[in-house]
């Protein structure tokens, strides 16, 4: 796998290169891959390992010539989740970072558009985290809103 | 100023106004049926537009944006009724002895200016852009139409529609303007201009529902939209009658005691034919962009109209 040779580490998983990196190595490895062939930044995903107490950020990149998918994975601590922003490498990373910030609460330094994105005026803590109980929230919020009863001959 | 004479005249005018509105609404319903058949579907009943107008005028809440917005409603219906009454319909000169083709041309502008004011007053950006397109469209289709109009006037040496109709109906169909070659070209150019005037499909750029949310009519609802539909119906009849008066002898084929009814039927048939032609063009063309429409009218149509004008000028000079 070309990306593994380039970065010197990582192993092949289901036909994709899975490379484990630390937080400070991530920037120049993305730059390196970007220079030789991996010019398509697919997406930035985040996995919440509640029991291990960490978030796993995965930067997916794609190489059109080699037809190879490289996954650069970084682990960051779950409690004060802070990560450097990579939006200066690929502009679209800014949007992924906004969504992950809203859904997981990871703070990205250098990205100055961490404003509410999908959930307008959402006061609670980020909903995608494993410790957020969506069923209980739905019961408390949506069920608690009463139906509007009127006298019967008012149509349905 | 005998009162009876005036009273009769007013009743005739009122009768023709009502006939114009009903035929207009009927034609729109039949037009939707034809378009449906072209799309190979059943289509609404022919009286659908009567129901639509009744529903619109019976809406409970009518939202307006101030007194300038209401001007649209007042100017639209009164302006287009005025235009209809200044046209010779089926050989009957309603008021067309008192005005001429230029007056009708400028009377057609009153309703569109009224709409422009109403749309502007609503403050919606879609309305502003829609009115801009409507005015650019007016500027573009007016050039060929005006050139053909002048060709006719120079040939018949009059600007009054009543005299044009009379001179074209001396010996029935043979004396129609469209039978003469230069006027055939002029009729083609004028018919394309008619397509723009009626705002039918290829040229319904100002009221495009997808791009600018139906343009000037964005904030029109209830009785305002009802008045707009009435305006469109009467405008349909007025503009096609103008074309029939200019090129097809105003539908006057018979003279004599029952001539009135025959002429009326011929007039009705002619404007229906014209409307069907424009509906078929509408059903088979996608919408133009505004620059394309402007270029189409000022380049190609204007050249065609100019050819007919020069040809008529040479004929008249000789």
């Amino acid at each position, binding site marked *: 796998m070309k990306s593994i040779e380039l970065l010197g580490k990582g192993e092949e998983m289901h036909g994709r290169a899975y490379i484990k990196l630390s937080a400070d190595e991530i920037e120049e490895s993305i730059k390196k891959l970007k220079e030789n062939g991996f010019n398509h930044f697919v997406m930035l995903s985040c996995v919440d390992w509640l029991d291990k107490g960490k978030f796993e950020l995965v930067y997916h990149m794609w190489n059109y010539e080699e037809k190879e998918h490289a996954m650069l994975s970084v682990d960051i601590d779950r409690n004060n989740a802070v990560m450097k922003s990579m939006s200066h490498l690929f502009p679209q990373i800014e949007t992924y970072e906004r969504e992950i910030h809203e859904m997981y609460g990871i703070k990205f330094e250098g990205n100055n558009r961490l404003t509410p994105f999908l959930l307008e005026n959402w006061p609670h803590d980020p909903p995608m985290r494993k410790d957020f109980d969506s069923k209980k929230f739905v019961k408390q919020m949506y069920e608690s809103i009463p139906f509007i009863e009127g006298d019967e001959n008012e149509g349905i | 100023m005998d009162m009876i004479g005036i009273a009769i005249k007013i009743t005739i*005018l009122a009768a023709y*106004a009502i006939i114009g509105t009903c035929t207009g609404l009927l034609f729109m319903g039949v037009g939707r049926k034809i378009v449906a058949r072209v799309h190979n579907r059943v289509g609404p009943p022919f009286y659908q537009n009567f129901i639509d107008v009744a529903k619109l*005028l*019976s809406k*409970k809440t009518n*939202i*307006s*944006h*101030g007194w*300038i917005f*209401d001007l649209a*409603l*007042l*100017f*639209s*219906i*009164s302006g287009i*009724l*005025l235009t209809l*009454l*200044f046209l010779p319909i089926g050989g009957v000169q309603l008021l067309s002895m*008192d*005005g*001429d083709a*230029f*007056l009708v041309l*400028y*009377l057609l502008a*009153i309703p569109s*200016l009224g709409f*422009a*004011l109403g749309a*502007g*007053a*609503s*403050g*919606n950006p879609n309305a*502003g*852009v829609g*009115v801009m397109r409507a005015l650019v469209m*007016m*500027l573009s289709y*007016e050039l060929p139409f*005006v050139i053909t109009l*002048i060709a006719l*006037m*120079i040939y018949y*040496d*009059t*600007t*009054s529609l009543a005299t044009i109709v009379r001179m074209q109906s001396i010996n029935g169909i043979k004396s129609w303007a469209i039978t003469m070659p230069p006027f055939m070209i002029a009729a083609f150019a004028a018919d394309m201009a008619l397509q723009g005037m009626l705002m039918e499909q290829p040229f319904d750029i100002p009221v495009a529902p997808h791009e600018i949310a139906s343009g000037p009519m*964005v904030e029109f609802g*209830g*009785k305002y939209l*009802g*008045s707009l539909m009435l305006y469109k119906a009467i405008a349909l009849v007025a503009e096609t009658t103008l074309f029939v008066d200019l090129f097809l002898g105003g539908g006057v084929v018979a003279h004599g005691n029952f001539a009135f009814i025959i002429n009326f039927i011929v007039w009705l048939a002619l404007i229906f034919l014209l409307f069907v032609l424009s509906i078929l063009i509408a059903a088979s063309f996608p919408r133009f962009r505004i*620059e394309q429409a*402007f270029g189409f009218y000022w380049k190609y149509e204007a050249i065609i109209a100019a050819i007919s*004008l*020069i040809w008529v000028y040479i004929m008249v000079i000789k």
Partner: protein
Amino acid sequence: MLDIIFAELVVAAIITFFVREKLAAIIAFFISLLPLLALLDWASNYGFNLINLGIENHMKIYLAGVTLHLAITPLSWFFALMILPLFPVIMLYSYSFFKENDGFFALMLLSLLATFGILLSRDMLSLFLFWEMMSWSSFLLVYRSKDKNAIMSYLIFSVFAAFAILFGIIILWHENSSLLLSDILNISGKLGFVAIASIITGFAVKAVIMPLHAWAPFVYSKCDEPFVAFLSGGLSKLGYYGIFLFLFSLKGVDILQNYMTNVSWNYLLAVFGALSAFFATLIAILQDDLRKLLAYSSIGQLGYIAIGFGIGTPLAITGALFQAFNHAFFKAVLFLAAGIVAYRTGKWKISELGGLAYKMPFTFMATLFAIFALAAIPITSGFASKWLLYEAAIQQKYVFIAPIMLIAGVGAFLYSFRILYGVFLGENRHDSVEEAPKSMIAALFILVLPLIIFVVFPGYMLDLMKPALEAAGIESIAHTKFAIETSLAKYNSIAVLITLMVAMIPALVIYKARKHRVTSFEDNYLAGEPYELHKPAMHAANNYYKPLKKVLLPYLEPGATYYFEKIYNGIKCVSNAVRRIYTGYVQDYAIYVVLFLLFVMGWLIWI
């Protein structure tokens, strides 16, 4: 009595220099009523005896051995009726327009004196004298705008006009050794042609006909509004007064015609008028600055008068005079309204204005009516004048001019709606604006009055014109009080108005049948987006006719100013070459003198 009026005008002009602006305005207002009084008094000998103060209608001024003959004629009476009412209205308007009095009223009174003098002068010397007084008093008013382009262009074009007229007058004076206007008839041949042609071009500059219009957009858009209202409403009519005087009253047309028979000269005037109407309208559509737009629209509408004079038939001339009358009033209303908008918001660009209709309802109504008159909608007298011009063009079978005139008419709709939508309708971005002061509103509605009177009775206007036309040997066309009859068709304005009222009934029934609720501006359809969330920009007036501009600009680019730039560059390089001679060293000058002497000696020896 007449000399007393002239004396009072001069005295008032001097007084208003030193008085505070409010008092100056009042003095100016009452003094400018005097010529109007004289006008109404003289109306008695033209079939309208209203008041008779016994002001005699002719006067002689003896000036350094030369007598200036001043007398009223039917033609100048009609033109005075069109121009002089503007002055008191402008004084009324500027009562609250100016903050401090820096000579505006004095200069306006001087230009009133000059206008009165031009209209009354019966001999060429007084005509030229008052024309010069008019030029420099209006130049000083233009100078107040402190804009280089406006000042330079106005100066150059007025000087060119003055020289052209002076050149013509000198030839005429030399030919038949008499300055009286009535003696011009017995001149013909090459000299006559040159004289009349130069005088007509001189007047055409002030009448803003296309190739000579380059000064108008700068001056109209930079000077202060009340003056521009007079400039475009009144002064341009003086240009047409001169053209009518020399072309038709003094049979200038025959002099031009029998010199060069193959070219029909007044058709040339009509072609220039048509071009100016067509191109000025298209340029006006694309403007963003309100005053520039009004300037080009004014050039366009004045083009119609040139077309009328160009066609030359009685029908065309009646139409042209009617159009001149309408233009004087509706253009003055539009410029004064632009002044009110600037007075209140301080902005000119249409894209920055918007939504003033609800804050300034009266100004909006006056502008709306003036716009209807400009766009020749049949409910205003604007239509009658344009209708006469169209009839004349068709009667003469002018195949090139008629379509251009009609298209320019339709083009007028575009920029007139631009003014209405851009400035008055749409989103209101000026909350602190309130209605204009009373005096300005009064001024607007006084000017709108004649447009209403002459839509109901177009016949009256033709009666007013009849003495002027007969004096020039043109028979007036058939008309009753309400309708105008021509050989081609009939226009019955009262039928149109009554039918409009009757046709309004169904509209009112529908309007009154259901109650309606007025919502605020925020409750607009923005594809569901609530307005409060982002407060998006809602005014679509910026770069309004973008598609039209994309199509038209390549054709309109090389305008008249393009040619004037070429002339300007030519003069510049010539003057550069000449400049090099003056090197500043005395020796060079000594050499020049020696060379010149050698040249002279050689010349003498050689003969």
